[in-house]
């Protein structure tokens, strides 16, 4: 059989490396392989120059100064450094004093790479408020304001959600934090490189981004750390050779950093064009599916969503069997099935997508390589799969017969 690879609609999980990025990286594996920390020979200088150039490329994407960029291994590390490093540095009361060490505000639909550092801090004596978003998936400045306390030291709210693509009011939340003198971090993994950022205009103190979500390599990312008004300090999480001004010691991942820089440079030049094209494709996809199928909803706010991510729930259809039925599309799923294979999505649950309808969801995320033909094929395939499974579904029959599924007495096990 010919190579029939699935259609890739999982760009929120990762993106392919742009060939221009790969090309920029290659010399730094073999020719310019030096350690930027080697201050006294050509190999070191070449590597250092490359890192400096990349730092400038990342800074330019964010409207920041290059001294404000710290290279990391990706967003998970950036988030950990920002949240834990910030909390330890700005704690109000020392550990063991019997008083809360400080208050942090986050949100229940953050990525695990934010939730888990927050939960660790809770165990270590900090208090964390996890805001619940509205059913539209949005976290607003009002919500953050209502949760603020005298001892709030840090707010961490993602710019855009990775499962449903909803966009939070980052500039307004940042303004509120600055007014109150509270440190503000945003996990911009799904936003930066796709949509415009200006850390001054957007009132951000700390921002995480990741190479592999923006057509760069995996295992490299950056943390923006504000240097002026206010000058943000962080406690490093690792000890070592003092690289990255001590924030993140360890020999720099020069090839990865060069790739991240190039990815940021490319992103800056084409994000407007990409966003416009992907929005049109996403709408085509959503319209195609929802116009042909009843009992399906696009999750999250209708407008305030990233151009390239859509998350659609299908009533009366189970997740794993839906994934089996659309196997020629590489995407991700949140399921109603709690028994074995698939976990229901905590993000969907917390925005009120309950399982009464017993549905499953597909997250389809588009990218630079996505074509109109692929979208049309996907629409057909999803519609066919859902129809087939509804043919099989006793719940869909009951629904059509007007039986209220929430009133049926199910035998629980």
């Amino acid at each position: 059989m010919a190579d029939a690879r699935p259609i890739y609609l999982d760009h929120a999980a990762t993106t392919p490396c742009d060939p221009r990025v790969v090309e920029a990286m290659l010399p730094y594996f073999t020719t310019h392989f030096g350690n930027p920390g080697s201050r006294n020979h050509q190999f070191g200088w070449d590597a250092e120059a490359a890192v400096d150039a990349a730092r400038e490329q990342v800074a330019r994407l964010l409207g920041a100064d290059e001294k404000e960029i710290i290279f990391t291994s990706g967003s998970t590390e950036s988030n950990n450094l920002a949240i834990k490093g910030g909390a330890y540095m700005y704690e109000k009361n020392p550990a063991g004093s019997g008083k809360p060490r400080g208050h942090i505000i986050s949100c229940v639909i953050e990525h695990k790479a934010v939730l888990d550092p927050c939960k660790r801090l809770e165990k270590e004596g900090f208090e964390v408020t996890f805001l619940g978003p509205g059913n539209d998936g949005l976290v607003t400045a009002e919500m953050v304001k209502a949760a603020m306390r005298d001892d709030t030291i840090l707010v961490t709210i993602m710019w855009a959600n990775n499962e449903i693509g909803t966009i939070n009011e980052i500039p307004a939340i940042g303004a509120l934090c600055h007014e109150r003198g509270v440190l503000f971090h945003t996990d911009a993994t799904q936003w930066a490189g796709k949509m415009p950022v200006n850390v001054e205009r957007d009132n951000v103190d700390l921002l995480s981004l990741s190479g592999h979500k923006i057509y760069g390599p995996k295992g490299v990312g950056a943390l923006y750390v504000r240097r002026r008004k206010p000058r943000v300090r962080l406690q490093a999480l690792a000890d070592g050779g003092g690289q990255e001004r001590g924030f993140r010691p360890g020999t720099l991942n020069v090839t990865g950093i060069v790739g991240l820089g190039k990815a940021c440079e490319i992103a800056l030049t084409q994000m407007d064009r990409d966003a416009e094209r992907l929005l049109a494709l996403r709408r085509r996809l959503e319209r195609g599916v929802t116009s042909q199928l009843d009992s399906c909803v696009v999750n999250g706010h209708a407008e305030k969503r990233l151009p390239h991510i859509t998350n659609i729930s299908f009533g009366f259809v189970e997740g794993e069997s839906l994934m089996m039925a659309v196997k020629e599309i590489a995407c991700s799923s949140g399921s109603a099935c709690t028994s074995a294979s698939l976990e229901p999505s905590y993000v969907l649950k917390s925005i009120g997508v309950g399982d009464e309808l017993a549905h499953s969801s597909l997250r389809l995320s588009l990218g630079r390589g996505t074509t109109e033909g692929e979208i049309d094929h996907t629409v057909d395939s999803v519609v066919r799969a859902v129809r087939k499974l509804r043919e099989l579904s006793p719940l869909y029959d009951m629904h059509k017969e007007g039986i209220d599924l929430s009133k049926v007495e199910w035998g629980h096990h």
Partner: protein
Amino acid sequence: MAYGPKIIEHYEHPRNVGTFGTQAEIKARKDVGVGLVGAPECGDVMQLQIKVDSKTGMIEDAKFKCFGCGSAIASSSLATEWLKGKSLDEGLAIRNTQIVEELSLPPVKIHCSVLAEDAIRAAINDYKEKNGLPTGEPSAAAHPGA
């Protein structure tokens, strides 16, 4: 989930999909027994219907509908194949372990076969109750091992 060929085959070509009527019609029909087991919030609901020849007492037809994973669909599809032509007692003797073996279900999917066994019992017992026959086997309301 990487499934074996038999599961995939039943999933892609499920046997005997359907019903013998709407929920209301089925309730009124004495020759049809229905088992509806599982719950939507657990991610699996199986509906199995048997049509019994009152003269011979044999199951002459069986149909299913299933909201569930690939294994649940395959298990219920297989159950309908096995039920056709069996007596009620023979039907009650079908065990989930036989389904596991036939389909090579992976360990995490054993509960899907348990559900199929439950659905078989529930359908046969429903037929028996409708027709005033003694229901010898324990009712399907209790879920063994699930």
